[in-house]
């Protein structure tokens, strides 16, 4: 089969020493970032972005992806041991992971988490292998109007899931799109919103922007005294970590169910590991004949969400690679990375850059394997790391950001961009406007404009073209539905908070 042949080629490339090394670096950094609560994958990827600049695109992607799914692995450690989720997608893991650890089964909990994460990841990768080419093929028959509709759906869906009010999420997306228009217009070369600065002719740099609104603003908000009680981390022997046969028999079905849920939600735009984890937990609790065990250390409650979020990690790549439409802000960053390296993701990429795509997919599996193997002996190390005070980290992060942004273009201008967007990011956060959707809008905005203009050109100015094509019509109707739901729930929530105050 051609698919397996491609995978074999990809595996060959993924196993090259250079790629293996950077995969390792990526997953280690990812785990580290995941273990430390407060620094999320988005921040980490933005900051480490410049370091991949001098690498080969395949290697760079492998490393960045490693950070992405590595954080989910690491986050679960913090959830189980500290009852503090390392990343949002691990929030559900605390519910049954922490009680299990408290009852003396720390090692078993961690092992179960590692096993289910790996299984979820593997299943997600299998689906990625089979479906990405299929979807890419279907997408080749998409017209600009369809692409525009799909991107619009992605943006609207992403903002409806983001933290805080979905209405603000939409506003954030729009703001991001506006920022994306800065620069020279592609068709006419007219400067737009450039404020007389020639450095902006290619638009605001993705890297300084991301580092500013994520990295710098995160440091500003999180800086200051933080208290974290680790309790007493005991030494764990390998034997104490082995789950019993009963554990395993309870675990395998939830893992399968969780992986399916995760794979599904990962592919959808706007949803990802976080939603998947929550859904998987809810499903297990609903299906269980003994739901009262949940929240007290139930094996199903631990394994299903972990399998689910790792599966979602993998399938999140499907729309990005096959369609060129990132389904989440992190995927938007990944896509930005590809574009900066000169590769445009989308259906053509699947056929033209076969090596890169399949090497990337193969590296996912290699990375997951590395994480499984590393998780077990290194647990003690992670526990130690959790005791490092974060206030040491923050100044270092700022320094890395400064050096990183200077490195990319050797221009001081980019450092100022970081500064301005650091201020902007902090301000937006304090006002409750989520910054992650803004990034999505920034990356997708120019693409949407291009597709819109193209659609208009082809239809000779008829806006009805969006209703003419069945694909774009159905997508737009779905989008409209979500929009109405957002508006409705926004007003309802405002009413509720008012009522509860009086």
């Amino acid at each position, binding site marked *: 089969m051609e698919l397996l042949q491609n995978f074999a080629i990809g595996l060959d490339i993924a196993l090259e020493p250079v790629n293996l090394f950077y995969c390792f670096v990526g997953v280690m950094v990812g785990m580290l970032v995941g273990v430390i609560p407060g620094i999320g994958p988005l921040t980490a990827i933005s900051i480490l972005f410049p370091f991949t600049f001098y690498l080969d695109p395949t290697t760079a992607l492998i490393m960045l992806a490693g950070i992405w799914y590595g954080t989910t692995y690491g986050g679960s450690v913090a959830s189980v041991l500290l009852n503090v989720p390392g990343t949002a997608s691990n929030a559900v893991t605390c519910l049954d992971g922490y009680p299990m650890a408290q009852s003396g089964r720390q090692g078993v909990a961690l092992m179960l988490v590692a096993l289910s994460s790996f299984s979820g990841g593997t299943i997600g990768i299998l689906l990625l292998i089979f479906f990405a080419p299929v979807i890419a093929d279907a997408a080749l028959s998409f017209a600009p109007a369809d692409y525009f509709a799909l991107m619009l759906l992605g943006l609207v869906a992403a903002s409806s899931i983001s933290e805080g009010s979905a209405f603000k999420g939409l*506003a954030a997306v729009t703001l991001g799109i506006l920022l994306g228009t800065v620069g020279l217009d592609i068709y*006419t070369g007219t400067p737009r919103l450039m*404020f007389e600065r020639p450095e902006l002719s290619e638009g605001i740099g993705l890297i300084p922007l991301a580092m500013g609104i994520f990295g710098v603003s995160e440091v*500003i908000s999180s*800086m200051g005294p933080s208290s974290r009680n680790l309790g007493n981390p005991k030494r764990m022997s390998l034997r104490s970590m082995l789950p019993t046969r009963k554990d395993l028999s309870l675990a395998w079905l939830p893992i399968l169910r969780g992986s399916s849920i995760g794979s599904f939600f990962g592919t959808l735009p706007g949803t990802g590991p976080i939603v998947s984890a929550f859904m998987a937990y809810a499903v297990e609790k609903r299906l269980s004949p003994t739901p009262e065990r949940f929240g007290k250390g139930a094996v199903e409650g631990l394994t299903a969400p972990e399998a689910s979020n790792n599966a979602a990690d993998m399938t999140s790549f499907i729309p990005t690679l096959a369609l060129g439409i990132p389904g989440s802000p992190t995927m938007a960053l990944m896509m930005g990375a590809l574009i900066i390296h000169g590769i445009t993701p989308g259906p053509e990429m699947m056929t033209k850059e076969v090596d890169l795509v399949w090497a990337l997919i193969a590296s996912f599996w290699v990375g997951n394997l590395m994480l499984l193997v590393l998780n077990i002996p290194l647990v003690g190390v992670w526990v130690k790391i959790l005791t490092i005070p974060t206030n040491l980290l923050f100044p270092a992060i*700022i320094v890395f950001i400064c050096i990183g942004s200077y490195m990319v273009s050797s221009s001081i201008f980019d450092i100022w961009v970081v500064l301005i967007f*650091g201020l902007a990011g902090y301000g937006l956060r304090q*006002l409750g406007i989520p910054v992650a959707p803004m990034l999505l809008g920034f990356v997708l905005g120019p693409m949407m404009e291009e597709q819109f203009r193209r659609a208009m050109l082809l239809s000779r100015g008829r806006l009805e073209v969006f209703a003419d094509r069945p694909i774009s019509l159905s997508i737009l109707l779905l989008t409209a539905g979500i929009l109405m739901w957002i508006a409705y729930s926004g007003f309802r929530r405002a009413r509720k908070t008012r009522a509860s105050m009086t």
Partner: protein
Amino acid sequence: MRWFLKTDILAGLLLIVISTLAAFEIRDLPLGTFRQMGPGMFPAIITGILGVFGLGQVVIGCLGHSRLVHFSLRKVAAVLGSIALFALTITRFGFVPAVSITLLTVSFGDTTMGARKLLLLCIVLPALIYGLFFLGLGLQIKPFTWRL
């Protein structure tokens, strides 16, 4: 008079301000027709939508209840000041002084940072950066220089 400092309402006001400024900035761009869209068409639509969102947000803010906005001037000044200082010193003095100044300035925002740890960072980090960037990636930034 403090009602407009509530997060929801302020958020809406900010959006309105941004969309107005943007609209002002793009006022000269040709719009063209739908058939042949000019450079100004898409930005105009976006600023319009943003303005509408701003208004909607203000309305939501008035209907509901949100907290007063919290803004730590100290932390902002420390972090942003450190970045500004880095920008000003990196080409003039090289990265070792730049990094040290940056670290020191950031720590102003964090009262729990001990002097000893800070000093340690000032030594360890530049060394790390030297190894990582200079030797590892071959980046050409000078550790020490004097170019006012």
